[in-house]
């Protein structure tokens, strides 16, 4: 996958925290523009790319939704020593924060600039005794920019964003580690899909969506699904891969294909169509059962407007919501190909064949 890797690495090097996705949206837009017929932004900033179908109008439409927002941190205050108090944007695991390199997006005096910083954990003797030796909660962690108090207070303001500074690294075995593989691995997979569709036609319209604010409440998917009201929604996100200490029954092998999720959040016929297609294409997969909320954009698209049949594909990932998430490149490629073939194979009357009896 030599041609995709640079783009994926670009995606993993950009900030774009929830509600502040503009930098990553721009990069995706540039990459998608030649691959789609139209591209634009939703009212909340989700990216909508349209590839027009060939069936006669009004055509059914497939929406493929991958969220592009990143988890991160936000400044909540500045201590008398000039260190930054922080809170989370999305769900950050505070156990992995001490010692992380971060970037503070300072918006005070002198305009917006990026200050490098480190997350500092005060020594145990300076923490409340009840914290003992356990992990230190976020409210006690601080960011040190190296600047003296007076200068910090001039350039950094409450509400400024703090993003992970680490750059993606290719690990052995065709895997990649970095922050925000959740869910830019899926954005990359959707890009593979758009590339595979070049020069091919499909009956349905295809809306490629890079959604905003998934990590803080599925907000982009909910509103984009309402705006586009597709006939069918396909959501791609990440799931828990097998890793150190992982159990057998809630995790899936890394590099052995995506999971096809089943459960009340998913339309069984759409799920079956994907599964049959994967079998036909000899793309390996695992079945993941989600008995409740899938914790993904699928939960929002299913109940948007008057209801949208939804399917969910997940890319296995290790160390979720840390700056060293790990994904197998092959799985990204497989998901991209599966989506492309699914799109190309949709018959104009596919929705008529979706019934609750199969």
């Amino acid at each position, binding site marked *: 996958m030599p041609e995709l890797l640079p783009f994926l690495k670009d995606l993993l090097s950009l900030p774009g925290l*929830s*509600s*502040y996705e503009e930098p990553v949206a721009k990069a995706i837009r540039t990459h998608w523009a030649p691959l789609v017929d139209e591209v634009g932004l*939703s*009212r*909340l900033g989700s990216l909508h790319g349209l590839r027009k179908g060939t069936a006669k109008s009004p055509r059914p439409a497939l929406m493929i939704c991958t969220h592009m927002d990143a988890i991160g941190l*936000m*400044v*909540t*205050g*500045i201590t008398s020593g000039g260190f930054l*108090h922080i*809170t989370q*944007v999305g769900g950050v695991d505070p156990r992995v924060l001490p010692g992380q390199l971060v970037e503070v997006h300072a918006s005070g005096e002198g305009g917006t600039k990026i200050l490098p910083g480190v997350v500092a954990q005060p020594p145990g003797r300076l923490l409340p005794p009840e914290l003992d030796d356990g992990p230190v909660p976020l*409210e006690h962690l601080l960011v040190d920019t190296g600047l003296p108090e007076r200068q910090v207070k001039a350039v950094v*303001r*409450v*509400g400024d964003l703090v993003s992970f500074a680490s750059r993606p690294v290719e690990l052995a075995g065709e895997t990649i580690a970095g922050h925000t593989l959740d869910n830019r691995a899926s954005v990359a997979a959707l890009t593979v899909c758009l590339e595979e569709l070049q020069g091919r036609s499909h009956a349905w319209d295809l809306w490629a969506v890079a959604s905003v*604010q998934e990590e*803080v*409440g599925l*907000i*982009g998917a*909910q*509103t*984009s699904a*309402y*705006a586009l009201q597709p006939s069918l929604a396909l959501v791609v996100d990440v799931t828990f891969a097998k890793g150190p200490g992982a159990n057998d029954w809630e995790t899936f092998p890394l590099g052995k294909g995506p999971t096809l999720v089943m459960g009340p959040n998913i339309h069984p016929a759409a799920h079956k169509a994907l599964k049959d297609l994967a079998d036909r294409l000899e793309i390996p997969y695992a079945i993941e059962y989600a008995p409740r909320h899938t914790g993904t954009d699928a939960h929002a698209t299913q109940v948007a407007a008057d209801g949208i049949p939804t399917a969910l594909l997940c890319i296995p990932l290790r160390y979720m919501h840390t700056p060293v998430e790990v994904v197998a490149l092959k799985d990204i490629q497989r998901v991209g190909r599966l989506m492309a073939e699914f799109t190309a194979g949709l018959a104009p009357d596919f929705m008529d064949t979706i019934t609750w009896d199969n």
Partner: protein
Amino acid sequence: MKRLIQTLTETFSPSGYEGAIRDVIRKEVKPLAAELRVDALGNLIARKGTKGGKRIMIAGHMDEIGLIVNHVDENGFLRFTTIGGIRPHTLTGGRVRFMDGTPGVIGTDFSKDAGRLPAVDQCFIDIGATSAGDCPIKVGDVCAFERPFLDLGKRLVAKSMDDRIGCAVMIETMRALKSSPHEVYFVFSTQEEVGLRGAQTATFGLDPEIGISIDVTLTGDTPKARQMAVSLGRGPAIKIRDGGMLADPRVVDWMIRSAEKARLPYQREVLEGGTTDAKAMQVSRAGVPAGCISIPSRYVHSPSEMVDHDDVQNAVKLLTTMLSKPVEL
């Protein structure tokens, strides 16, 4: 404005039972609105400004937290559950008033450990009845905190400042707003305390292009408070994040630009817990850029919520200046 705040906060209207406060607010805004109506969920909607302009929705909730009776025992004691986020430490020794005007006091079951906080189901209301037979209050009757408005000069204290202070800011803004290029909808919303329910449906109905809520936020300026860079008296707070949403950065910028241009004090708010009607507005239909102007408040969800009079007046000025001029986000 203090008299208005007193009238609003001394009215009893828990979520779902907003009739009394709606009548009070309707009387205030009737002469100020071009159009006034009540929707299916009881939201009071007042239109002002230029028809055909940008549709901007301002939401402040008129409901308050309260209690609802779920059992009357043979001696006329009332057990209850909560409407909205009422916690037991605000109950013991307190007084309540039912919708029909009946007052009551809150007692607790005996505990050997007098220092232990009772659970809500270990509390009861005593309205002075001697038996179930002579108790006029029935299962399903609702009440709210009884606590008179207190004018401490610069600082004002009352029950239900959350969010009658937002309603007061909206009413005064309607009064101050001489003209607006926008089609502005002031929505005095219902059922915010039980899940932003009035704002959710009002937003769907109005389909605004921008949404702003006016609500209270917490502060970090009391002894041993949780770390938070908001204080009473340093200006209205412009919400960047709360427990339920990230305010739309374009709306945040609009608020900050307006405050700085008008030389109004303001604070940047990052709140850990809680959320406002803006969360419901943001996800309505295809999405609405939404934000919130917050009135810093101490002791939120207690019977003695405290705000700063200058902050309140500056919030009126900020909202008025924002609505007076054209805006492109």
